[in-house]
């Protein structure tokens, strides 16, 4: 009888996967993405400090979304994807 009921979801949608996690940050390029929420930069400043203290990261890159209210612009995403090994996003609130 299940065939008599139609699926309200998009059954062809591909399930999303998170990116594989590196075993170590040694020699990696890490991007810290500020989404423009108030005080998000405070959190990321501290994350940067800790990464420099505790890991062997090669470079830390700081990027910022124009607004937290919308997804990152395509150009910014492409820029990050092409140039970083690890992304840390300072989410809201």
């Amino acid at each position, binding site marked *: 009888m299940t065939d008599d009921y*139609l699926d309200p979801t998009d059954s062809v*949608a591909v399930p999303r996967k998170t990116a594989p996690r590196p075993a170590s940050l040694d020699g990696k390029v890490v991007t810290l993405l500020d989404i423009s929420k108030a005080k998000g930069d405070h959190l990321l400043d501290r994350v940067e400090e800790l990464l420099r203290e505790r890991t062997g990261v090669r470079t830390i890159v700081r990027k910022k979304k124009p607004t937290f209210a919308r997804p990152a612009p395509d150009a910014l995403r492409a820029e990050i994807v092409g140039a970083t090994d690890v992304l840390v996003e300072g989410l809201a609130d």
Partner: protein
Amino acid sequence: MTDGLPVVPPTRERVARAVEACGRAADELIALVPPNFGRATVEKIAINAVMAGCRPDYLPVVIAAVEAVCDERFDLHGVSATTNSTAQLIVVNGPVREALEINCGANLFGPGWRANATIGRALRLVCVNLGGAVPGVVSMSTFAHPGRYTYCIGEWEAQNPWESLAVEHGFAPTDSTVALLAADAPITVYDQRSRTAADLCATLAGTLAVIEHHKMTHWGDTLLVLSPAHAATIAGDGWSKADVRRFLFERLQWPVRELVPGVNGGDGLPDHVLRKFADPAHDATLVPKFRAPEHIKLVVAGGTAGRFSAVVPGWTFSKGSNLVFRRIR
């Protein structure tokens, strides 16, 4: 997923009836629904509409609403993922209101009309089932509000002393349209005693002032729903919609020094705005609540008894969601 309430089982027969009623191909792609970009075909929208309890002839309204929320300007990604409380409000204009018995009068935001109840619900189910706005997973709103079950009203054009919302935005009176607003819950404004436009608009400004928080500025599209009685008082003084907007815009401005974080509340102007002033704590430059008068959108609706209006705050920030229209086909 549902909204927690029981649904009508979407049988092939019921869905086929809805698709047939709208006169479009079942596999026609209407939109990709953010944030997961599920494919909203006519059939997928129809399945969700059936589940919501829509009559087959409601489907064109639901389709137009889906098109509108998937417009980039609406920013459905943000609306579905924000920690804020916003929901998708549908405002219907034109002849379709009578044809489908969409309520524009008493009990405007409340229950009692199948069209209002199920069209709004269908849109919400589309956002969950095709957009992925699953509560607690993608949709992380701290509070949300009851409009996330359904949020759909009509404008009572016959009680409107001015042109309708849709006509004001370039549509013909014979067009049927939806206007979609990312909207907070309505805030009722009580004013029984004002008998002039200026007095009444001063009251309305008092409620508009506290949208989001009392020091929020640079706000965008927000709906002001005037009851027929309040609209008659304002229009009776010869004021146009533009006059109302100008009065409210000019009244809703405060000097920078009153908007500094820590003055009358810890929040206030963001750092990038404060940096524009040499000495914000003493600066008298006026900053408006709304970016422009045109962001205050006026409609006339609600019961003829009662001198109330309602403010329906948008979810806009400086670059967020905008009011988006679509013609119903």
